[in-house]
């Protein structure tokens, strides 16, 4: 008797919730086309990207340009490259903008993503204290500089978070044929800003993207020590999750954003973006 009553209450609650959900859905489409406005409210587009891209401020310039032309509102979710790729793979984002070209291409091959394009590149810098105790300042060879840091056991702070920067760092250690280990090598699993702060505090060395470094340079006791090596270039790519796997993503919007990133107009916006008077990103879409 009592059970039955509970069941009926349960059903009633479900029903009310369903009605609410339906009403909400309706009102959404209703407000989507207000009669007095010609343009419908913009659709939300979720862009998963790396913290370094987001922190540089590029998107704050780029996305308004896109939104002015197309009827989308882009929400930026910034995280590590690993997490950004995972978010795309799970269909939690509509577009992914990251910098780990080898992994990206592999994931496209595995069918998780489609429409991958090179967008731009920036470069990495090895930074360290001004007095440069290891004596690698002005060098052009990143791998050789790493080898000297390891040899002198100077403190090196590593992102250690499978981010694009971390991948780049690992590739340089590989090139130098060194397995970094020991007290001097600190794998901290934090964002670029935190890593730079820790490096500065401990008068150590680290590998950073130029954008974050320029943005934070004034609050750090660090200088660019090694730059300009081909191995330090960093390719950014954009792609969309496979719409066959995730029918719920906004593939149309994703395509629009990808197209805009690689269009002449989009590429010009990238080239024109400056931070503290320095160009950070070099467009290279084909």
């Amino acid at each position, binding site marked *: 008797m009592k059970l039955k009553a509970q069941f009926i209450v349960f059903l009633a609650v479900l029903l009310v919730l369903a009605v609410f959900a339906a009403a909400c859905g309706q009102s959404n489409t209703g407000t989507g086309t207000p009669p007095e406005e010609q343009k419908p409210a913009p659709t939300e587009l979720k862009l998963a990207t790396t913290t370094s891209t987001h922190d540089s401020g590029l998107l704050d310039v780029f996305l308004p340009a896109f939104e002015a032309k197309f009827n989308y509102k882009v929400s930026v979710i910034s*995280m590590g490259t*690993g997490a950004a790729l995972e978010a795309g793979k799970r269909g939690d984002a509509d577009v992914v903008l990251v910098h780990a070209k080898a992994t990206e291409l592999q994931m496209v091959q595995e069918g998780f993503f489609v429409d991958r394009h090179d967008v731009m590149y920036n470069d990495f810098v090895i930074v360290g204290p001004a007095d440069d105790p290891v004596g690698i300042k002005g060098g052009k060879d990143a791998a050789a500089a790493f080898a000297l840091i390891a040899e002198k056991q100077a403190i090196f702070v590593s992102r*250690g978070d499978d981010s694009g920067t971390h991948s780049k760092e690992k590739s340089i250690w590989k090139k130098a044929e060194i397995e970094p280990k020991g007290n001097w090598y600190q794998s901290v699993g934090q964002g670029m800003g935190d890593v730079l702060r820790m490096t500065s*505090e401990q008068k150590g060395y680290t590998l950073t993207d130029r954008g974050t470094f320029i943005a934070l340079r004034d609050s750090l006791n660090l200088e660019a020590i090694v730059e300009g090596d081909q191995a330090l270039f960093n390719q950014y790519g954009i792609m969309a999750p496979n719409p066959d796997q995730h029918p719920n993503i906004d593939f149309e919007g994703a395509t629009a954003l990808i197209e805009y990133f690689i269009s002449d107009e989009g590429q010009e916006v990238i080239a024109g973006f400056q931070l503290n008077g320095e160009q950070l990103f070099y467009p290279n879409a084909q």
Partner: protein
Amino acid sequence: MHIIWMSLFVSGISVFLASALGIPLGTWLGLLPAHRVRWAAQIIYTLMGLPPVLAGLLIYLLLSSSGPFGVLKLLYTPWAMVVAQTVLAFPIVTGLTMIAVRSKDKEIRDTAVSLGASAWQSALTIVREARLAIVGAVVTGLGRLMAEVGAVMMVGGNIEGKTRVMTSAIVLETRRGNFEMAIGLGIVLLVLAFIINSCLYRLQGVPRN
């Protein structure tokens, strides 16, 4: 499994230090008339909700090599995490002890005093009668510390094999996209919390009849 040990070490020492300071202070405040310690109580209650990252930031600025205690070279060591976590746990232990003592204060004190207890003896009696709630305060503090990530990450640096603890490892694995690993660590953390709470609960000596 260095991170498990490090979590226990840092949070354990911190809650011990916070209790060593907070239980006497909380008892003292709890025994004074409520209207006379109103301001102190409000400050403590506010600090009980101190955001860990704010505590972390303050300790960071103090311990930074350009800060006043930079010469101690504590930043990015487990001891920096102990300092930050002690700061976080201290108001919690103090505040909850104060509440526990106050809730027992009047009737226990009247009884003790009418039985001939001195001021000091009746205070001790009140603490003894409030021991369940005081142990609860310590457990609450420990729980908050074990679950805390903002402060330890900022002042400890999350250095692998040195200052990485369970919570900062979870943050890292989540950021890496290794959700399974993050969840696994989370389960270990919960199991650990359960074991510690069970032990402390036994320690409370809950009467079984």
